[in-house]
């Protein structure tokens, strides 16, 4: 059974269609890159799948059941700039938030949850910063805290919205390592991604999106010159496209 099946998802803002009839199905343990130009609806697709914005039409199934019934199986890493980093809290506290779904309403985190949060911080190399106020972290470190929080959630399918934006080389490497570790553990990860150069190195599957699905499938066969041109409306020059495809 596929961990994620998306059927004919359609989203409109003010009667204007931003996503049209998006369908795809992801096998277990794959890293999927969602690629497309600005305004192609990449983030919108993620938010629509998570029910943050209403879908006009379409269904999302997680391990065979509707997403609404399987929320606990889905982890989400929002864009870094979506929260106020001056909020009075420290890195460990943010990672602990990933455990809230397991802890349940109004109960306090147990020692066990704190231990898991610490392990997750350790995995992204942020253990020394556990008690650091979050506004004092660099952009890359903040991104790693968000990743640690998603790990603490212990989900089966992960959605990550542009985790590579504005991070340094060390963090990028750490994220890639983490993605591969998740994959080894049979997790399925969808990543909204911008950098065409790295698509081939990072992702097993790729979803080329521009309001509609231009192409979906294994990176090897789908990430071709024609498809990229079609996705970007012919704006990628011949040379750079040839370089990307390799």
């Amino acid at each position, binding site marked *: 059974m596929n961990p994620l099946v998306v059927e004919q998802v359609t989203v409109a803002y003010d009667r204007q269609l931003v996503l049209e009839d998006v369908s795809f199905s992801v096998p277990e343990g794959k890293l999927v890159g969602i690629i497309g130009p600005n305004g192609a609806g990449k983030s919108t697709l993620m938010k629509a799948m998570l029910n943050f914005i209403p879908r006009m039409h379409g269904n999302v199934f997680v391990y065979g059941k509707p997403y609404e019934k399987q929320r606990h199986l889905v982890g989400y890493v*929002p864009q870094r700039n979506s929260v106020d980093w001056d909020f009075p809290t420290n890195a460990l506290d943010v990672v602990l938030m990933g455990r809230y779904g397991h*802890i349940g309403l109004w109960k306090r985190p147990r020692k066990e949850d704190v231990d898991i949060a610490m392990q997750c911080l350790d995995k992204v190399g942020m253990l020394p910063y556990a008690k650091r106020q979050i506004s004092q972290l660099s952009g890359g470190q903040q991104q790693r805290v968000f990743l640690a929080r998603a790990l603490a959630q212990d989900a089966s399918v992960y959605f990550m919205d542009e985790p590579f934006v504005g991070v340094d080389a060390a963090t990028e490497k750490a994220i890639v390592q983490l993605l591969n570790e998740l994959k080894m553990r049979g997790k399925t990860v969808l990543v909204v991604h911008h950098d065409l150069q790295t698509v081939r190195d990072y992702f097993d599957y790729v979803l080329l999106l521009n309001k509609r699905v231009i192409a979906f499938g294994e990176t090897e066969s789908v990430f071709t010159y024609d498809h990229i041109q079609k996705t970007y409306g012919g704006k990628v020059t011949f040379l750079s496209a040839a370089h990307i495809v390799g």
Partner: protein
Amino acid sequence: MAHAALPGICIAFLLYGQKSLLVFLIGAACSGYIATVCIQFIVKHTRIKEDAAIGIVLSVFFGLGIVLLTWINQHEGGNQSGINDFLFGKAASLTGSDVNVLTVTAITMITTILVFFKEFKIITFDRAFAQGIGVPVSLLNGVLMFLIVSVVVIGLQAVGVVLMSALLITPALAARYWTEKLEWMMWLAGGFGALSGVAGAYISLIAYVPTGPLVIIFATMLFICSFLFAPKRGLCSKMIRRYIQRRTLRAKQLYKRGEQA
């Protein structure tokens, strides 16, 4: 929010005919809710941004409230009702039953906050994520809004409409300078608010000055002290730290130059 509550309170008074905290609470909640809906409507259907929309709606509601308040004062024997104290507040106008209502509401609010502290924290920090892990975001947000409206209505009589929002925000801002933990910030803000309240009410009693402005002056003084003298984030400690850094740096440079010579 306080500004939006005023017309609701006036209408509640006109309908009910006398002063009652509970009826006022309902009135304030209704007009507060209508104001919120108006703001959201404007943001969604026009190109006007949220801050501008809030400005437009709140000033209209406040204007409406003042009109109603003046009307009540001229008719209905409003002078005896004490409703005009709502503008600048008068703690002395509180009756025994008011105090009971205040106490019960305060205890209920503190309990609610303590019980759902974790949830309130996550929906304020990262609402999308909270929704993703199955926290009932809209419900809790509604509860939080209800708590704020209740605080506003209860505080109105003591500090008045004009300064209520200042009392909501200033102690919290002051507390932010002393701590990096939300838990501590909450208790500190409560403490600062209580301190300003007691001091303001006391001086208001002996000096025959409206309570509201005095309370706010005290809260603001606490804020300025925090802004200047808080150990980590305060302006003075920052300047002292920078001065020490500069001196050690200069000493090091001099030492180096001495070595080279």
